[in-house]
């Protein structure tokens, strides 16, 4: 039996047609769907022609993988983009929004633990108080930036809807509104059922009100190592377990809706620059939050706070790593958004009054 019959390499270095076609299909998967829709067929022809020649090397395959991944990064607004600048800016802003959402989620888990802890006890290390101040300030700033960023995007979506082009925004809008409603209602319900933030009369009261601390805890209680300990988790009230399953889906719904809306909305050049400026400030807030989290990890990681409410666990270390990664990703997205927003051109003049 020949090598070709066995499905192996032919003596001339060429591959059997079926195997070659399968390889081409696999290689195309490196590229995003939008790219494949536009260039896939002709690119497959080129690959097939080159594979018919002897000796495509690992370097040849690596080139396809690298350029395919770069195309995926470009599609996410994290690398130079062959699309039009407006689409590139939208993609970058959507990715920056995702990074901020992931960072806030990872950060809020740490922040909620400290916020609840500070209702009951005074930390021995001032680094923890400093951490709480930085993290609370950064979260407050991020909340404000979210509202400021939502205004032009919501306005553009509503304006498109008023012109009869609102269909693309229907589902993202519904996902955001319903998700936020369920998150606020559910979080409020769960926080009321937990007696952990009543505060001790003699204890130091933190800068964060008890209700806010409890809501933070309720919204992030699903980010826990209890999932690895089913027996301990089973001791939780059924409503809490239900909320722990529901809340990540709800948060995912809100983030997905936001990203889809950001990618679909067509902002003016001025609005692009405004959103990009907000994204830059958000990155600075994330850096401040990361500094606060680091202060806590360094202060409480030495063992002095072992067994206390401020103890650093593996989930917190993982959260810090996620936070740092998301911040780097956010920086790349903001850099691309700034470049793309600059290429969008001057702001379109307002239409003359009729």
């Amino acid at each position: 039996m020949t090598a070709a019959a066995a499905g192996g390499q032919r003596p001339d270095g060429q591959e059997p047609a079926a195997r070659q076609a399968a390889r081409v299909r696999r290689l195309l998967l490196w590229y995003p769907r939008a790219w494949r829709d536009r260039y896939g067929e002709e690119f497959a022809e080129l690959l097939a022609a080159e594979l018919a020649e002897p000796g495509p090397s690992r370097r040849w395959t690596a080139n396809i993988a690298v350029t395919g991944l770069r195309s995926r990064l470009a599609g996410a607004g994290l690398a130079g983009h062959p699309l039009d600048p407006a689409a590139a800016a939208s993609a970058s802003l959507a990715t920056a929004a995702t990074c901020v959402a992931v960072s806030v989620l990872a950060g809020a888990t740490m922040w909620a633990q400290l916020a609840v802890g500070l209702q009951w006890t005074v930390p021995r290390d001032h680094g923890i108080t400093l951490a709480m101040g930085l993290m609370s300030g950064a979260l407050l700033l991020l909340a404000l930036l979210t509202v400021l960023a939502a205004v032009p995007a919501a306005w553009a979506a509503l304006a498109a809807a008023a012109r009869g082009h609102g269909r693309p925004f229907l589902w993202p809008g519904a996902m955001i509104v319903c998700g936020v409603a369920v998150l606020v209602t559910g979080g409020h319900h769960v926080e009321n059922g937990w007696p952990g933030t009543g505060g001790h009369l003699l204890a130091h009261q933190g800068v964060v009100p008890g209700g806010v601390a409890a809501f933070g805890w309720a919204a992030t209680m699903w980010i826990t190592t209890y999932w690895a300990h089913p027996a301990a988790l089973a001791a939780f009230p059924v409503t809490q377990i239900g909320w722990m399953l529901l809340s990540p889906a709800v948060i995912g719904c809100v983030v997905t809706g936001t990203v889809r809306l950001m990618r679909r909305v067509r902002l003016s050049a001025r609005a692009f620059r405004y959103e990009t400026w907000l994204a830059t400030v958000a990155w600075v807030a994330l850096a401040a939050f990361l500094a606060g989290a680091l202060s806590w990890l360094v202060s409480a990681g030495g063992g002095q706070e072992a067994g206390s409410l401020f103890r650093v666990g593996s989930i917190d270390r993982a959260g810090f790593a996620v936070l740092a990664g998301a911040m780097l990703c956010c920086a790349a997205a903001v850099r691309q958004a700034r470049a793309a927003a600059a290429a969008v051109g001057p702001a379109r003049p307002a239409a003359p009054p009729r």
Partner: protein
Amino acid sequence: MSTSDEPVTAGGAAADAAGALETLGRSSGPASLILSSLADGPKHGYALTKDIESFAGVRLAPGTLYEALSRLESHGMIQAVESNDRRRPYRLTATGAAALSTYLESQRTVAEVGLRRLAGSWAPT
């Protein structure tokens, strides 16, 4: 009709195209090769690879070729030709011709200065 027969927009368009290839970043090198190859008529991906290999001695890997092609197309320097062939051919546009012309002129200036200076200082004795 061969693309080389198209009138290249002179003056303003050429000035707009000045440095246009440099804006393509890492694709500017492959882009100049692709535009040079398309200067004598439309070609599909594989034909471009073979032609560039023949006149420049460089074999563009497929990922690099299509990265540059997509950038050139988005900048309006090349255009896909309507074809029933699955191997879609591309042709040079007036913008692409102007950009290539500007780029090659600057390269010629560099080459002429370098060769002149080499001849003056390093002429064989």
